[in-house]
């Protein structure tokens, strides 16, 4: 009897290891492997040399800058929203309504902005009406950041909301009783104790923001090139898989870096406490 349950365990483990080897380890290894081949298929470090030229470094920096902006604005708008949501009646329902748009395919949402921000779209009609006049909104940095923030906001609100919900209200009361102002209570009690939620929010937003490519194409009109756009371009347009893989390697490194940084914060905070 014991032997059969042992067999079952072996079956589970073997099946799952084979799966992981084939669909997690192998693909990542192949990306690394391909990054050492140039476009003619020769083994070389040329891709890495290329990556460290100004074109790619500027692109990487701007990709980071946009991801930073997107994360920053998502947090700026998302944090108060999450906070106020915890204060509402029927908060579960309101939270569900915040999450609902995130179930809708992001392409459709991006597509909506083609109409809203378009030359004859509703925003420009409004600007016209109040006397500012028609502006070029679509295909600008503004529209790119706006639409990205729009798409990511539910993902920022959710972890922050959970963190605030977990906060014992007695701590806030205690701080008020001790004479702290609202701002001090927020800065010294609420925010530090909800940092974990903020951290996971940053993780969930920053990494995808580095790798967006469909929004850059639809909304930013190829003006904004993120790491994701560059990878897509190299793989599917230029067909230079080697260079694409090299950029992918750096995107993976960036991803690991973000995870380590956001994790370290928590550790430091814990030590200080």
């Amino acid at each position: 009897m014991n032997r059969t349950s042992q067999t079952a365990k072996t079956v589970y483990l073997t099946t799952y290891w084979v799966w992981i080897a084939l669909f997690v380890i192998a693909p990542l290894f192949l990306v690394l492997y391909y990054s050492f081949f140039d476009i003619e298929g020769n083994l070389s470090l040329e891709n890495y040399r290329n990556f460290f030229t100004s074109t790619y470094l500027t692109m990487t920096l701007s990709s980071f800058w946009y991801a930073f902006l997107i994360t920053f604005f998502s947090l700026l708008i998302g944090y108060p929203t999450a906070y106020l949501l915890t204060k509402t009646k029927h908060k579960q329902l309101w939270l569900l309504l915040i999450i609902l748009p995130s179930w809708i395919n992001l392409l459709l949402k991006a597509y909506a902005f083609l109409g809203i921000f378009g030359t004859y779209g509703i925003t420009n009609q409004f600007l016209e009406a109040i006397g500012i006049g028609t502006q070029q909104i679509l295909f600008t940095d503004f529209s790119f950041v706006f639409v990205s923030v729009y798409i990511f906001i539910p993902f920022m609100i959710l972890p922050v909301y959970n963190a605030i919900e977990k906060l014992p209200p007695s701590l806030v009361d205690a701080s008020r009783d001790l004479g702290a102002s609202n701002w001090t209570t927020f800065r010294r009690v609420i925010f530090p104790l909800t940092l974990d939620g903020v951290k996971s929010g940053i993780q969930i937003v920053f990494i995808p923001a580095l790798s967006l490519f469909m929004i850059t194409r639809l909304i930013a009109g190829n003006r904004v090139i993120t790491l994701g756009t560059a990878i897509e371009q190299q793989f599917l347009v230029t067909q230079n898989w080697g260079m694409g893989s090299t950029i992918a390697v750096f995107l993976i490194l960036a991803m690991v870096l973000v995870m380590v940084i956001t994790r370290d914060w928590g550790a430091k905070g814990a030590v200080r406490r």
Partner: protein
Amino acid sequence: MKRKKIKLANLYLMAVFFILYAPILYLVVYSFNSGGTMSGFEGFTLEWYASLFTDTRLLVIVLNTIVIALLSATISTILGVIGALAIYTAKQKYTKTSLLSLNNVLIVSPDVIIGASFLILFTMLGIQLGFYSVLLAHIAFSVPIVVILVLPKLQEMSPTLIDASRDLGASTWDVLTKVILPYITPGIFAGFFTALTYSLDDFAVTFFVTGNGFATLAVEVYSRARQGISLEINALSTLLFLFTLLLVIGYYVLARRGAKEVRR
């Protein structure tokens, strides 16, 4: 003063809700516009819906999308349960944690990385890009989610349940089908449903591994949207929105019922 503060808070929340829903409503409203553009509403029409339902190419794509979603959700649920069982039954802590972290790699990886690396993988394995490559990719990114959703249910389960059933003479198969699986059913449902919505929703990964002849809805919407505005996409979005709404409501009703049963 207090009332004023509450009002400001409500105003803020209302603004956020407005911004979140305005684009979706905008799409829906213009799907009925006879003018043919997303600016200036001229009159009510259903012609975009009519042309949607006569567009056989699109209907085939909708069918593809649904078949891929159902198949990939089913297969990834089975694999995910096996994976969760593997992590749960693994004896060494090292095996447990390494399996779990490898499982999480695909969850945190950006879509572009998953797409690009699978494109290389499928090409190396000689799998033709199309239905099967898309199906495999969807299974691959859904499995870790199922594992993550099923594992807590397994850990919640008291091990004495398994011991008791063994003592009563249950075979391994009986233990699995009569004790473990019924116990983790809510997790399995959540996993299946999430896998389904992930598959329906995915664009980036599919875009990489889809090849020329095969498309899912998201890929089709992307290529049409790149050519500009067509109110057929609005009509399609409206239907998808309603469908998503139904799925979410259905899921919540199921989850509620599940929670009630557990409480009982």
